């Protein structure tokens, strides 16, 4: 975590941008997966968003803006493709939120956790993904998705409570 922040503070060269991207890419792709069902689509979104972010000369440490860009590109992709949008709406209404796995589950407990995470409401899952796997603060999450810091923290708490409840032995 510390290394990551230190690197992000002093990005100036293109090589460093590439290094940063390789560091952030897993979390960014996972974040993009909240809107699309396939890993390939998520990668396309991340590529598009990251290159746009870079071309607009934003500072890499402006993480809320980077995630807001990914979010914007993902939503725009859905809006542009009506067939995809219909499919996404249907998928959102259904129980499982993803088709391809988002995590490399090593045992049954991790598979259960991933499944429980998938069943969270979208707004809660989005905050959990940003907080746990992208290491954003609640203030950054709030700025990225346009909610208050307290709302982001509340959604996170609700999500963890729901996960804990789902994973408790009956």
């Amino acid at each position: 975590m510390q290394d990551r922040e230190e690197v992000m503070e002093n990005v100036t060269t293109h090589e460093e941008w590439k290094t940063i991207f390789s560091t952030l890419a897993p979390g960014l792709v996972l974040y993009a997966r909240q809107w699309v069902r396939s890993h390939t689509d998520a990668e396309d979104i991340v590529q598009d968003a990251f290159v746009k972010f870079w071309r607009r000369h934003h500072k890499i440490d402006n993480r809320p803006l980077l995630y807001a860009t990914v979010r914007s590109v993902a939503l725009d992709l859905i809006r542009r493709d009506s067939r995809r949008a219909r499919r996404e709406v249907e998928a959102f209404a259904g129980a499982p939120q993803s088709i391809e796995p988002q995590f490399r589950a090593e045992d049954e407990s991790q598979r259960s956790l991933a499944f429980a995470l998938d069943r969270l409401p979208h707004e809660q899952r989005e905050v959990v993904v940003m907080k746990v796997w992208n290491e954003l603060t609640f203030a950054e999450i709030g700025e990225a998705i346009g909610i208050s810091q307290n709302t982001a923290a509340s959604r996170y708490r609700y999500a963890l409570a729901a996960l804990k409840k789902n994973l408790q032995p009956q």
Partner: protein
Amino acid sequence: MSDFVEIEDELKKLQPVQPSDGLLDRVENAIDSLAPARSPGWASRLRRSAPAGSVVDLAEDEKVIRPDRFRINLLSVGIGLAAAASLLIFARLQFDNPSPRQPQIAANSPAPVARSTSPISEFLPAGATQVVYHTRDEGLLYSAESGEPMRRVRSRLQESLQWRNAATGASLRVSYPSEQVELIPVSGQ
């Protein structure tokens, strides 16, 4: 939040699916191929000029800054600088060669000193007001001359007269009460 430490630890153990090598290659290639569009000097200057924290809808391709738009911006800046330089040159020329009409205009303008006379004569009527603050109908009167009935209305007023000295800006105001009686013929129709 301490109640959730265990579940948070479990979540952190979950490893996201790693992005493909193709994604990293594609982004690296994009950065390499588009790098000339990001001249370091211009980049830093543009970044500094952008409002901090401004969130732009980056999803719209039209809003992405492309290399050709940088050229357009440079052209605009050049035209603007040329226009500014031209204005400065013309301004300098006008400053060096003042218009010969200026003294004539100054000479033709009336001299305020020439109008000065005695201070009393400077006071000119500036206004008059008449405020009716009470009116009373005193009833009908029958005049012996006309034989027609007339209504007598008595009014109390406050009249004010004002003079102003244009040269000094001084003003004089006289205010006094007055009473007015009107005889208004009453028509029988």
